[in-house]
């Protein structure tokens, strides 16, 4: 555990921090061949400035034994109550190591996003790590984001996400999640689970309530995700 914390501190301290909200999803580094999935994510951030609502719809398909590609449509409602398509995104996740073989399991994520109707792009590289401790698992994501385009000042950002999960029951796995960025540090409880159907079909859910801990004002985010694998 000390080795893990030292490594994360070393990696994280060598990077600048990000700005903006980062509560979204903690990615696991594992891929299944033949995996196909539909995903819906919901995020509601409540602060003294009002409510921000984000939703994402995605389709993903494995491209090989260790690689999966997903396409996203992102919808947002801002504090002016305008709701609509906000961005498109393509994401590739690559499992780097065999689960359980090494000290920890590793993966990497590449993501390109374009804002709808504006020339704002985002390229994202994420390092995904998971370490198993008997019935619990620690997952850490470290992202480096490059924003560019004619309508935005080019800049690098980083984000850190972490999840500690206890595998109590397939349908009931309590967790604690942590999200950080320059303007936001949030932590809170979560719950996730899976219900299996015939063959490879399974429905996964995740829910978490993240409270900002670095500001003087109210800043809570509720996130919810449903994933249908088939």
């Amino acid at each position, binding site marked *: 555990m000390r080795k893990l914390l030292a490594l994360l501190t070393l990696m994280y301290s060598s990077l600048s921090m990000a700005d903006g909200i980062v509560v979204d999803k903690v990615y696991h580094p594992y891929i299944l061949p033949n995996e196909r999935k539909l995903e819906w994510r919901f995020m509601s951030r409540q602060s003294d400035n009002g409510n921000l609502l984000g939703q994402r719809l995605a389709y993903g398909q494995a491209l090989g034994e260790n690689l999966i590609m997903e396409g996203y449509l992102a919808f947002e409602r801002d504090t002016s109550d305008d709701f609509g398509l906000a961005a498109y995104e393509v994401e590739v996740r690559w499992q780097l190591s065999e689960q*359980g073989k090494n000290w920890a399991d590793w993966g990497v994520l590449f993501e390109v996003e374009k804002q709808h109707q504006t020339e704002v792009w985002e390229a994202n590289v994420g390092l995904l790590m998971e370490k198993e401790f008997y019935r619990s698992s620690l997952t850490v994501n470290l992202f480096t984001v490059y924003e560019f385009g004619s309508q935005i000042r080019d800049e690098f950002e980083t984000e850190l996400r972490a999840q500690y999960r206890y595998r109590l029951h397939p349908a009931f796995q309590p967790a604690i999640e942590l999200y950080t960025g320059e303007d936001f540090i949030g932590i809170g409880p979560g719950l996730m689970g899976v219900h299996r159907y015939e063959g490879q079909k399974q429905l996964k859910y995740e829910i978490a309530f993240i409270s900002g801990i670095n500001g003087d004002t109210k800043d809570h985010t509720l996130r919810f995700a449903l994933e249908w694998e088939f």
Partner: protein
Amino acid sequence: MIKMLGVVLLLVSSGVFAAPEVVITLKDHLFIPSKIQVPADKKIKLVIINQDPTPEEFDSFDLNREKVLFPGRRSIIYIGPLKPGEYHFFGEFNPNSAQGSVIAVAEGNDHVD
């Protein structure tokens, strides 16, 4: 970023060890043997040979593993370290027949605690 990737590559490539190895055969949608005994608190290398003409998916919530077993191939699944106890696994495509369990036994004990 380069520094970070260097650290990762080092960690991904390290940690290869000689884990105790257990071979299981999948034939006629049955895991043979269906019960295996392994030492507790050690990583174990399961080698599963799928002799069936169809794929199977090894699934175990207890062991926290999911792995596709392609027909005619040897698949490797690393499990543990496990506390003493019994850990069930099954085949997702034939859950009624393809079932088994890993029994982790503490060193010096012949039986599960």
